[in-house]
């Protein structure tokens, strides 16, 4: 559905997107993750023909972008960096106007009202009145933006932070909506820095770090169990003695054991009279994966950093040094890496 080859975008000295080979397949729910400033938005803008690549190729549905982007855009619904609308018009008027601005299939004037109503209903704004958008809440604007993306029943949805500004119930509604659309054959590409959102929605993951696509795989494969078993037991000393050889580490009553079969381990321990409180095969969390693969986001500006915050100085930060005092006392709560940096 979307294929990029060695896609690169350079803004002066800054490499925003660096030789990315993105592959989104038909029917995917693809989650694009990465810290702030890692190039997610630039990448998405290039896919939509808004920003022109420095080098590399993009193909969507077999059409080269940006050369023949006008041909594929009618089949794409997009939400890019937050919704936008003419604030002096109502939501309905905005959608009707956007709809009539676009050409292409399914754009007849007679069916416009029906299309607008259906899109509003899908995002939960069916009962919205004639108030101008100026009076809408952030969540309503977000829903309106989604409705605009859904107007022409696209086969590909490209959504940048689609649940921004929604409350937990709203987030779930939108998630359910996207899953339903995906079941009906819509491919979804979604960018986010909210790991939970991506973990619950997406089937495939790509992780961007400083412009590079460092991970691209099925979520299930990424989250596959490891060959380690986590064990908690009140008889840790005896277990330690018993498991000599397969024991990897111990922290109080918590042990990490090499192995792939918790049931067998359990039988072995219980047979020796060791009580088992918890026993589970280790799975890597998406958070661990992403944090391992990425550097701090570009919105973090440490005092020690003399170079511009982005791109980061090339060597990875030394995990043993304590980060310099953060000049910003209230860092972005969504920032993935700041809290963990010192402990890794």
């Amino acid at each position: 559905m979307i294929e990029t080859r060695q896609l690169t975008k350079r803004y002066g000295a800054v490499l925003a997107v660096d030789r990315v080979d993105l592959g989104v397949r038909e029917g995917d729910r693809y989650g694009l993750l990465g810290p702030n400033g890692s190039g997610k938005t630039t990448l998405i803008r290039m896919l939509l023909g808004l920003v022109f690549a420095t080098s590399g190729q993009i193909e969507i549905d077999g059409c080269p972008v940006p050369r023949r982007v006008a041909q594929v855009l009618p089949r794409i619904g997009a939400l890019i960096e937050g919704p936008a609308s003419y604030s002096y018009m109502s939501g309905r008027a905005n959608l009707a106007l956007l709809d009539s601005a676009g050409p292409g299939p399914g754009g007849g004037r007679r069916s416009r009202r029906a299309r607008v109503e259906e899109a509003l209903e899908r995002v939960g704004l069916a009962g919205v009145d004639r108030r101008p958008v100026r009076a809408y809440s952030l969540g309503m604007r977000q829903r309106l933006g989604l409705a605009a993306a859904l107007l022409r029943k696209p086969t590909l949805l490209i959504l940048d932070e689609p649940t921004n500004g929604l409350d937990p119930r709203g987030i779930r509604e939108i998630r359910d909506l996207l899953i339903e659309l995906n079941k009906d054959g819509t491919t979804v590409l979604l960018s986010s820095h909210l790991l939970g959102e991506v973990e619950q929605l997406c089937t495939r993951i790509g992780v961007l770090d400083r412009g590079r696509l460092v991970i691209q795989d099925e979520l299930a494969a990424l989250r596959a169990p490891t060959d380690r078993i986590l064990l908690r037991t009140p008889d840790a000393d005896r277990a330690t003695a018993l498991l000599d050889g397969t024991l990897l580490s111990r922290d109080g009553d918590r042990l990490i054991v090499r192995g792939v079969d918790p049931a067998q381990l359990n039988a072995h321990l219980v047979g020796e009279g060791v009580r088992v409180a918890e026993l589970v095969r280790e799975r890597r969390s998406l958070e661990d994966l992403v944090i391992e693969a990425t550097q701090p986001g570009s919105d973090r500006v440490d005092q020690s950093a003399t170079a511009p915050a982005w791109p980061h100085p090339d060597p990875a930060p030394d995990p043993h040094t304590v980060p310099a005092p953060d000049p910003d006392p209230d860092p972005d709560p969504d920032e993935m890496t700041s809290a963990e940096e010192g402990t890794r």
Partner: protein
Amino acid sequence: MIHVELLRMVRRPRTWMNLILLCALPIIVAVFIAVTNLVPAPGQGPAFLSAVLSDGSLYPAAGLAIVLPVFLPVSVAVLSGDGVAGESGTGMLRYLLTRPVARTRLLTAKLVGTMSFVVTAVILVAITSYITGVLAFGSNGLKPVSTSSSSGAVSSATTGVSIGTVSTSLSGTPLGTGQLIVRVAYGIGYISVSMLGVAAIALFLSTLTDSALGAALGALAVLVTSEVLATLDAAGSVKAYLPTNYWLAWIDLFRDPILWHNVIRGLGIQGIYAVVFLGLAWANFSTKDVTG
């Protein structure tokens, strides 16, 4: 996209505010003149104003002369400067372009929108001024009220003065109502085209920045510079190429016979400015990374 742009402008409160203000200015002037019966001495102040006391039906021309030098170009600069930068500022630009609306088509729609506003504004000013003039000063209809024959034919329109003894035509011969209507229509057309240069410059600046205000101010700076240079003898060599130079040439349309020379040169200059700056706007916008 063009009909969308027009629809959007019609729905936008600002457009109507703009039109109301443009039409209000000549009305305010008319009220003061009607109350005091004082007009600027011939050759001073806005063109035609000294003549309206004797014939109110000339007031549309006076109204246009009042609005043209400052108010109308400011409106055009603001409107046209808002063109691309305004859409970028609200974030709608990315949604329009991915709808998709081709970039060239978007620029065309913006220009058509601005010029539609100009034509509408000029016609509305002419109509409201006519009504105001007839109500405030009465109409002499077909009766010629030549006071003296003026040497208007040799006066230079570019200086915007010496329209002393207008009553019917500037050359002193009487104009019938039919002729007057034709001349006013020509005037409306010429004034509209005169704004093409400003619109093109503002639209070009609008593709350079995300700030609608910045683009409008830039276009106004060009106009002010042009007006300043026009009065400067040292800049005489470039005078003929300034965008504002032939703005007042439409006054020649009210001479008998019509003096076409400056009118045609004015149209030519506007055409050149339009081609150059629209070309630049197109070249810049169609290769620009849209990040707003």
